[in-house]
């Protein structure tokens, strides 16, 4: 009797294992890889998720500095893009889960552009030299991406450049923030929206000499820009980001918010030379060097990096293949405010440049 029971249990286990194995879908086109790139004293992770079928990779450059690569993976837009392409979420030197040992004095935008070059070399080494590479930079990532594109002949390694609310000229950003707070603030006062708050904000920026904005004033302006966006979000001009999903929770789990936040913040804020370089960098005069197909994506109500930065880049970039899209219900992060429209524009752009 016992031997029959054992036989029955054994068969049940074997059948269960076979069922599990047979149910597992064979899928060689979707990847979920992590690669560390060791370069100039830093070990920088890149997280790759998505569809390998089209042989197309989009390297993302996160904002901050001080954020991390996987932040751009949250939300519906990234999920849509991963269905079509391989998204490469790059932590950048000193941020996210990047490790290393290097002197703060050695960190420059140029070194970080070289890190990005190293990543591209590794991607081509691992996935083949014929892969299609696109670069997407958001906010500070737009500054870093621009610095990379105007250096040597690096843009020849890419198929296209997608700048999302990119801060490629901080002095210009600061001037435009003052202008935008004044203009849109007055419009909102006329409409009777958050009147007292806008009046206070306009009054504060009216004392700033836009011809001579210091780094400290620039930092304060960034805080005011966030406030302005908050007012517009509350008054329904900016679309609220969707609630956090289980997928997002999983992505947050993969991050290390304490270590990453402290590492990234200290790296940025305690490194005065680097901080000053970022806050004074102005690439508008060199944008003509970009000859790559370019897609510029901006939020209509982006006070942090106003849309004028995008329009100015559109006018200056040498490429004849360029497009500027302004999302009408977005602030600094259209990827969160209008994820579907955001993903659709990128899919269209990438598919037009196989």
């Amino acid at each position, binding site marked *: 009797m016992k031997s029959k029971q054992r036989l029955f249990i054994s068969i049940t286990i074997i059948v269960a294992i076979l069922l599990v194995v047979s149910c597992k879908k064979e899928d060689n086109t979707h990847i979920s890889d992590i690669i560390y790139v060791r370069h100039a004293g830093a070990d920088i992770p890149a997280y790759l998720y998505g569809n390998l079928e089209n042989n197309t990779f989009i390297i993302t450059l996160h904002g901050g500095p001080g954020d991390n690569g996987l932040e751009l993976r949250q939300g519906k837009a990234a999920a849509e893009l991963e269905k079509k392409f391989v998204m490469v979420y790059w932590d950048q030197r000193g941020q996210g889960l990047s490790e290393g040992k290097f002197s*703060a004095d050695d960190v420059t935008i140029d070194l970080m552009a070289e890190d990005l070059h190293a990543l591209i070399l590794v991607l081509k080494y691992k996935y083949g030299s014929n892969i299609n590479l696109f670069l997407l930079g958001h906010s500070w990532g737009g500054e870093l991406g621009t610095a990379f594109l105007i250096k040597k002949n690096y843009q020849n390694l890419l198929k296209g450049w997608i700048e999302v609310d990119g801060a490629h000229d901080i002095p210009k950003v600061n001037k435009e923030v003052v202008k935008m707070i004044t203009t849109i603030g007055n419009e909102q006062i006329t409409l009777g929206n958050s009147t007292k708050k806008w009046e206070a904000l306009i009054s504060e920026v009216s004392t700033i000499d836009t011809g001579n904005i210091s780094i400290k004033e620039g930092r304060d302006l960034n805080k005011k820009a966030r406030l302005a966006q908050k007012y517009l979000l509350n008054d329904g001009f900016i679309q609220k980001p969707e609630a956090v999903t289980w997928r997002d929770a999983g992505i947050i789990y993969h991050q290390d918010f304490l270590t990453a936040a402290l590492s990234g913040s200290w790296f940025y804020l305690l490194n005065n030379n680097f901080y000053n370089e970022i806050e004074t960098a102005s690439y508008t005069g060199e944008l003509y060097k970009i000859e790559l197909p370019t897609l510029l994506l901006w939020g209509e109500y982006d006070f942090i990096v106003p849309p004028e930065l995008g329009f100015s880049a559109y006018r200056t970039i040498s490429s004849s293949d360029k497009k500027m899209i302004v999302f009408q219900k977005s602030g600094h992060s259209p990827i969160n405010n209008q994820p579907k429209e955001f993903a659709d524009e990128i899919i269209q752009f990438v598919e037009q440049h196989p």
Partner: protein
Amino acid sequence: MIVKTAIVLSLMLLAVTKNFAQVTGITERKLSFTISYYGNMLIKPGIKAGADYVITQKRCSEKERKKAAANSMIKQLVVSGDVGSFWHPHSHVAIFNYYTLNYRIVKPTQQKFNTIGLGPGIYRSVYPETYEVDDSGEISPVSMAGRFYFAPVLVLGTGKFMAGKTIQSWHFNTNIMFLCNYNTGVVPLLSFDIGIAFSFNKNKFIP
């Protein structure tokens, strides 16, 4: 920098140990072993094993004991050595080893104890697939890539005794490991461990 920090920490540990020993004179000693779930940020899973050795302990004086009434206390100085590992999903694995000198207050009537410990440690991260790119653009795969860090640790813990059994106590510790020379500075790593202590010695742990 690392050497200086190590020397300062060692001197501090030595000073505390010496001072404590002068006050007590009690020589009862006890070895126990610990095993814990070790979670970086609680949810990045890992495991830790170690040994605790009570190097000296003292009871409150009679006068103090009257004051404390039923809550008489035993103060212990414990040295611990721990080794462990945790897994950062979709990223890296970490291995660590640290030694702490712990000051432990035991409340026998409540069978509870609280601990604070400090000591030197070492931490090693191990990455998955890694490629090194040199200045000329040459790429070479690196196997078992990762980095070593000098990692002093601060432990704050609490626990409860289960006297008379092989499993002597359970504990909940908060560990802050300071990874030195991490990128351009020092970065704290917050972890929690929940585990048990056991001993093969039949003697009652609390005399």
